């Protein structure tokens, strides 16, 4: 009797597993940023979303080792380089969605249609107005000029954001010119490169250096913690770089469908939903990033920085040129 009860129980559990639709996601975007979205999705559609977070490297190694038996349907990363790499390793599947194509601008999508950006992470300058005037700032390239000697702060070249930035510069100017710029940056450094953007912004605010290059949402997070009336006075200000030239360097946080997805349709639906009006605010605002969907207005703090011109080179370039960029920075002595 007891055995019967148990087996019935087990059957019903298995049955439950088999029938509730699930989408399984491998994500390097951290759990507290995406979980609320997935919860909302589950509430709306009844589809369960299972997430496993890790760094990009291990996630890709994992996908590769699992091969056709991967439980993952979808991959989310916080930069374009790793999506490009996943696609390059044959871990992703091409999808064509009218919804996504309408919602997300072309330069934020893979030309081969294997991944799409879901939020925009802009990398620009912060400066300390008591040490330098906004008029003195112009482009990333200009920061290599000797007039900034001892005034520049940079984050480590090991961070993918800087690798993308330099990769995009290579796409624009070629390696020789870019290497000159990077060497100029290194010569202008006020102190050792930082391990993270937050520390860098604090160093600018404290006057250790006059200007630095950071992702905007790190500044956003600092401002977010301040009372609304104190934000204006914070001594690190944002400056939109390269507005008169090719525009601010942007990276994306994005997603693709895995090559051996078990629930391909489900994954596509989830990506479409994430690109939609409803989800975009939640996706971007949670981390004070910019929505990838241009129709959506950003968070209060984020929109207070005003509109800006984005560099329109396709994100895939960042991935393609990442290796070159890293080697170039090694040569230039950018730690």
């Amino acid at each position, binding site marked *: 009797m007891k055995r019967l009860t148990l087996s019935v129980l087990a059957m019903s559990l298995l049955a439950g597993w088999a029938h509730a639709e699930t989408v399984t996601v491998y994500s390097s975007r*951290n759990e507290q940023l995406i979980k609320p979205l997935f919860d909302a999705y589950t509430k709306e559609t009844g589809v369960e979303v*299972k997430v496993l*977070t890790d760094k990009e490297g291990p996630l890709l190694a994992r996908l590769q080792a699992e091969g056709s038996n991967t439980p993952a349907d979808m991959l989310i990363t916080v930069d374009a380089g790793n999506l490009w790499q996943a696609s390059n390793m044959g871990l992703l599947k091409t999808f064509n969605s009218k919804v996504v194509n309408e919602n997300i601008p072309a330069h934020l999508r893979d030309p081969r249609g294997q991944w799409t950006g879901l939020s925009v992470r802009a990398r620009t300058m912060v400066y300390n107005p008591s040490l330098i005037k906004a008029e003195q700032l112009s482009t990333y390239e200009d920061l290599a000029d000797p007039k900034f000697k001892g005034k520049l702060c940079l984050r480590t070249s090991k961070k993918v954001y800087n690798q993308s930035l330099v990769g995009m510069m290579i796409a624009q100017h070629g390696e020789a010119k870019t290497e000159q710029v990077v060497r100029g940056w290194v010569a202008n450094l006020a102190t*050792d490169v930082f391990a*993270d953007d937050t520390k860098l912004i*604090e160093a600018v605010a404290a006057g*250790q250096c006059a200007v630095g290059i950071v992702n905007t949402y790190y500044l956003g997070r600092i401002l977010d913690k301040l009372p609304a009336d104190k934000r204006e006075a914070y001594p690190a200000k944002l400056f939109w770089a390269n507005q008169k030239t090719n525009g601010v360097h942007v990276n994306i946080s994005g997603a693709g469908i895995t090559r051996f997805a078990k629930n391909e349709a489900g994954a596509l639906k989830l990506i479409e939903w994430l690109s939609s009006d409803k989800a975009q605010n939640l996706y971007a605002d949670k981390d004070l990033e910019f929505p990838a969907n241009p129709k959506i207005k950003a968070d209060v703090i984020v929109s207070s920085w005003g509109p800006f011109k984005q560099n329109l080179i396709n994100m895939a370039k960042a991935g393609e040129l990442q290796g070159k960029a890293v*080697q170039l920075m*090694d040569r230039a002595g950018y730690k």
Partner: protein
Amino acid sequence: MSKHSWRGAVLALPIALLTLIPLLVVLASFLHPQPEIWAHLGQYVLPDVLRNTAILLFGVGFGVLLLGVPLAWLTAVCEFPGRRWLSWALMLPLAMPAYVLAFVQVGLLDFTGPVQTLLRELTGDSSWFPRIRSTGGVVLVLTLAFYPYVYLLARNAFLTQGKRALEAAQMLGYSRPAGFWKVALPMARPWLIGGLTLALMETLADFGTVSVFNFDTFTTAIYKSWFSLFNLTAASQLASLLVLFVLVLVLVEQRARGARAYHGRIVAAERIVLTGWARPAATLFCLAVLAMAFVIPLLQLLVWAYSVLATDLDARYWGFTLRSMLISLAAALVVSVLALVLVLLQRHYASRATRLTVQLATLGYAVPGTVLAVGVFVPIAWLDNLLLPYAHALGYEGFQILKGSVAVMLLALGARFMAVAFQPLESAMQRVSRNQEDAARSLGLSNRQLTWRLHLPMLRGGALTAVLMCFVDVMKEMPITLMTRPFGWETLAVRVFEMTSEGMWANAALPSLMIVLTGLLPVILLVRKAE
């Protein structure tokens, strides 16, 4: 004995395979040469990285001895105000993950930190303040994080030596300080080397701390090849060089230890009572280390954690903590049992082959966690792929059999932390003398009974140390947990990863704090036990 020279090795092999298979996966990378990357690395990356790694090893090695040995000596042999509570308090930094200590110390002491900010407000200048984000800073932080390994083992050695050896030296004309250098220290060498080996292996494998300092080491070169140059193969090749280096280190250690047996005798503790200036100096020294390595970082963590308490702390934290503790305890038990088997095999079948096999089993500790994690995952995924068609034929609907199972996670953690459990057990085994074994045999004990009635009871202390140290280490472990955990398996360390990966240090403080607090209990037990 020579008749059985292969027997021990064969018996130890299954356990060694836990580590060897991942290492072989890593080594297999040499099947695919990567000349381009190597040309680049060789010219622009490796020279710096090798120099830095060497500096780090010497600096941290010297540092942990410089702190660990005097602290152990003071608390084990001397008497001074506060000695009793300091002797256990000085172990507490073991509960503090090195990367946490790193981000706290940098947060406190860098240009923008409260210390320098205050200095600027008071004097208008802080430019004379030593730079924390420097070689000295990394060495300091890693030293503060890893000295407890030396402290713990050296203290054990000094406690068992007692004052007697020192008195013997004094009777032969040596002053107390001279006797310390000539006798107490050399006699403690196996323990010191044991502690030093653990500290250096941790240093070699460390990624979290050096990345907070942006200090380029061999490990950062490995990660650069993998994450930035998208070349896991080159990264594995670098990692296997690292393993080779560690193997040499371990063999040198074995040789240095030589054939000498050290059978300590517990001598009734008669302490040297410090007098004059030495009394407050001893107390101050201990307090300073404790403050730097534990109290100040803990306070900073508390401040940060408090600032996010309202938003971040929710009911899930019970689950994180519970899972952290469960997995740590289970892994600690599994690893300790396996290490115990190795120690026993090494004793029963003493031969070069056995020793080598056992040594191989402990190498996982020096491999950067993430690299080892891949080495673990690849063969498991392969096995899963092999099994899945049959499972599916039987009606199984999932796509993971071994992958993402707690059992595999435990084995992977075992591959990583074997050395941690092995060191204290081996030290304990060294105290079981051949005479005691012979005595037991002469009383009619078979080999098996010898194990149950002599070895295991005498290894009890070492086993407890092994379990507790592993517990604390697994608690802090990140990459293997991330790679092998089941879906939705969130622990405190995973939580710390989630936060730090986005540079949210204040938010990372909460789970870090809970890691420290959860780790405190075993650490305190560990010291109580040593008393």
